[in-house]
């Protein structure tokens, strides 16, 4: 059925399933713990947490991850105390549980990457858990099944190796050997429970298994038989007295009864005294050898570098069904078009054209739906990213000695996987800032007439074709004077600049800007809001801040649904067609020569409603024309684009259509080209480059750094 190769890769696949189960389980446990801490101490939540730990333990034991199994066992034992209400839920207890979750995460990560796990932290936390159990290691007893003597001679890895080799290899050696040498005599008393038969058992199964171990004699005991009138055929009345002559030891004999022990009275005694240990014809391999075997079979079959899971995605079956349906439609569509062309002889051209047109219309619709359905597969709910924040807020607020509640809404909003992965860090930064700088200390809040517990709201929603994520806090709000002062020190603004509040707020996104008087270990140093903004803009998004003194701040992030498709404005520059992301375009103007200023004979600036906008000749950027600055731009089209809140005017030859384009990576197909986001294939089959406005503007500003002040002031 399965050859060994398929068994092997099958196993590897199952191992990955197990790892992702572990991660899901840990998320579940963590969420439950945070719920507990918030006072939602219901049995349902405790049970969920318990089950999560229990499943991890079972899987880990089965897959041979002894350290995880043992650690989880201790955790589970303590959780059981909570479940049975022997132990009350207190913040320090939740804290220990959370630390245990961290240890398990590290362990799971180690098994994923195949690296060794550093045990020190596990030891510390395990000691803490045992401390809660009353300090005695014994409290954890009974130990994990795998370490208990009676369990099996074969540890779990056999489960794995049997599957990898695809056969029941170990069977023969166990059951055939004993009959050759004389063993010792065992008396076995076997009295099945009355329900024995009703529970699906049959005594002869056991006898057959015992007979495989040696010579078996049976003596039925009929004492239990009732009067014939009371006899029920489904009830077991018999007992047996068995004698077994075998080389096998007690454990091996008991093993036969393992799976029925709950359904029978079993008593196994040696009739002759056991021989000296050295001479014992022990059937089971000696412990050392056993360990070696276990080691050999340990399921780290292949060590893989890096995270394998990063490249995979879990998809709802429904989404795949939609795809299949659409592919079905496509096939029908193709058959229909075939039909039209095949039956063309002797038919009117007009009629034929009509049918073709109809077929093409259908094809267009199916293609669009197919495209949407494929995009849909890459979509994941934001909860994937949001789920890590409750823990963060919990840890940080404790460290900062603040009371903060995190409210999450709209976490079911879906985003492209790539966008989702890259929004995590900026969000993390914003939430950290809100906690550290936004929310005031409890005393300050109370003095200001606010509730002692601050609130951070993380919300997501659809707005038009984009997803909007908001991070709001009800804290102190941005301090405009201090920001202005700081910007002045850094030389970002002139002392006499007249800026509105929102313009001042916007300064926090400028490179090198940081107003924190004290650099705390929470927000850290180095990474500023400028990095947040550039991270967001890299994935085609925007970030804005709105803040009110004393009431709080809101950061609003607008993100594209996907990175694979883009709403583009087609432009022509020197005969070539380029694509500009529609999101970055503010407006289009026709150049009035009188409003053009040339600074120092080279920098071109356009006066747009009283503000100076640096102008770029796209022919220069695209290296098509020579010295473009001297050209007369009068009457040409200029597209005003926005990047990092700065406006730049791009001079183009012609504005063409607006189209949705599929982005093809230049990096994977060719090489990375600075200033280009990628390429796309247009309707007529030609390749067109997609311009990266952000890099373009940055390059421009770097080149003109000397005159930056003149043009950098925000042009709103």
């Amino acid at each position, binding site marked *: *059925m*399965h050859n060994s190769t398929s*068994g092997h890769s*099958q*196993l590897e*696949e*199952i*191992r990955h*399933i*197990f790892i992702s*189960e572990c991660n899901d389980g840990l998320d579940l446990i963590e969420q439950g713990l945070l719920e507990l801490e918030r006072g939602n101490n219901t049995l349902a939540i405790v049970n969920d947490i318990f*089950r999560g730990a*229990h*499943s991890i*333990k*079972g*899987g880990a*034991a*089965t*897959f*041979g991850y002894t350290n995880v199994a043992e650690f989880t066992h201790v955790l589970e034992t303590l959780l059981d105390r909570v479940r049975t209400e022997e132990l009350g839920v207190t913040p320090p207890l939740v804290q220990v549980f959370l630390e245990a979750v961290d240890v398990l995460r590290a362990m799971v990560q180690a098994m994923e990457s195949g690296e060794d796990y550093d045990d020190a932290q596990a030891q510390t936390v395990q000691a803490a858990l045992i401390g809660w159990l009353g300090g005695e290691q014994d409290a954890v007893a*009974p130990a994990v*099944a*795998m370490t*208990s003597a009676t*369990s*099996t001679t*074969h*540890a*779990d890895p*056999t*489960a*794995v190796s*049997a*599957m990898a080799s*695809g*056969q*029941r*290899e*170990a*069977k023969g050696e166990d059951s055939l050997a004993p009959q050759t040498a004389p063993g010792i005599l065992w008396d076995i008393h076997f009295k099945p*429970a009355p*329900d024995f*038969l*009703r*529970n*699906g*058992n*049959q005594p002869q*199964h*056991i006898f057959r*298994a015992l007979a495989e171990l040696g010579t078996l004699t049976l003596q039925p005991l009929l004492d239990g038989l009732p009067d014939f009138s009371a006899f029920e055929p*489904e009830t077991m009345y018999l007992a047996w007295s068995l004698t077994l002559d075998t080389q096998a030891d007690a454990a091996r004999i008991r*093993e036969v009864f*393992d*799976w*029925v*022990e*709950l*359904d029978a009275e079993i008593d196994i005694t040696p009739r002759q005294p056991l021989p000296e240990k050295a001479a014992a014809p022990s059937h089971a391999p000696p412990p050392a050898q056993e360990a070696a075997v276990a080691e050999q079979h340990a399921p780290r079959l292949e060590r893989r570098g890096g995270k394998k899971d990063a490249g995979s995605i879990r998809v709802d079956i429904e989404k795949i069904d939609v795809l299949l349906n659409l592919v079905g439609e496509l096939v029908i569509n193709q058959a229909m078009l075939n039909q039209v062309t095949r039956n063309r002889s002797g038919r009117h051209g007009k009629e034929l054209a009509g049918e073709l047109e109809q077929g093409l219309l259908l094809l267009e619709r199916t293609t669009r739906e197919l495209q949407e359905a494929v995009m849909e597969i890459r979509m994941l709910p934001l909860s994937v990213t949001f789920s890590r924040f409750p823990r963060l807020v919990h840890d940080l607020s404790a460290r900062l000695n603040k009371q903060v509640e995190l409210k999450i809404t709209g976490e079911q909003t879906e985003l492209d996987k790539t966008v989702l992965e890259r929004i995590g860090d900026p969000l993390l930064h914003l939430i950290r800032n809100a906690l550290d700088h936004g929310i005031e200390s409890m005393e300050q809040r109370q003095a200001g007439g606010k509730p002692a517990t601050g609130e951070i709201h993380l919300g997501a929603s659809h707005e038009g074709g984009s997803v909007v994520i908001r991070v709001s806090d009800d804290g102190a709000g941005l301090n405009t004077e201090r920001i202005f002062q700081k910007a002045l020190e850094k030389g970002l603004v002139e002392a006499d600049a007249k800026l509105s509040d929102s313009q001042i707020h916007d300064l926090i996104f400028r490179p090198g800007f940081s107003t924190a008087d004290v650099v705390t270990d929470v927000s850290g140093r180095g990474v500023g809001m400028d990095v947040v903004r550039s991270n967001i803009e890299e994935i085609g998004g925007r970030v804005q801040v709105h803040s009110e003194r004393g009431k709080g701040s809101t950061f609003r992030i607008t993100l594209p649904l996907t990175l694979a498709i883009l709403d583009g404005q087609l432009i022509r520059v020197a005969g070539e067609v380029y694509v500009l992301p529609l999101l970055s375009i503010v407006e289009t103007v026709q150049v009035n020569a009188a409003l053009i200023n040339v600074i120092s004979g080279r920098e071109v600036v356009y006066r747009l409603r009283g503000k100076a906008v640096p102008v770029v000749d796209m022919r220069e950027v695209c290296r098509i024309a020579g010295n473009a600055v001297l050209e007369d731009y009068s009457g040409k089209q200029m597209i005003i684009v926005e990047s990092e809140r700065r406006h730049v005017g791009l001079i183009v030859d012609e504005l063409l259509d607006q189209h949705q384009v599929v982005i093809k990576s230049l990096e994977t197909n060719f090489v990375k080209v600075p200033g280009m986001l990628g390429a796309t294939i247009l309707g007529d089959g030609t390749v067109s480059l997609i311009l990266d406005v952000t890099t373009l503007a940055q390059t421009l500003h770097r080149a003109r750094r000397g005159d930056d002040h003149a043009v950098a002031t925000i042009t709103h």
Partner: protein
Amino acid sequence: MSHVLIVDDSRSIRELLGGVLRNAGFAVTSASDGQQGLASARGQCFDLVITDINMPVMNGFDLLAALRTLPDYAFKPILILSTEFSQEMKQQGRAAGATGWMVKPFDPVKLVDVIHRLLG
């Protein structure tokens, strides 16, 4: 070919167990909780059932009890495969009508042996 029903909420365990049993020549169907397991068992007649205890929606004991009330499963072997191994738990399993109890981590060779024996 004997047909075995596996009920376990962990997909990795289902796959592993399923793989072992298929390799041993059994047909295998699996379900991820007691309720699903009960629905499958009602839909067709399995020769043997292996179930976990701790599962969402409907746990293994409840599944067992429910199966034993069905005429088709009154005498069918039903094994419990669990990380639990306390005597109290085993008693509970017995009361619910379990044929046998195997502790995870399981030895597949032994499990297959047991199943062969139970199925005669």
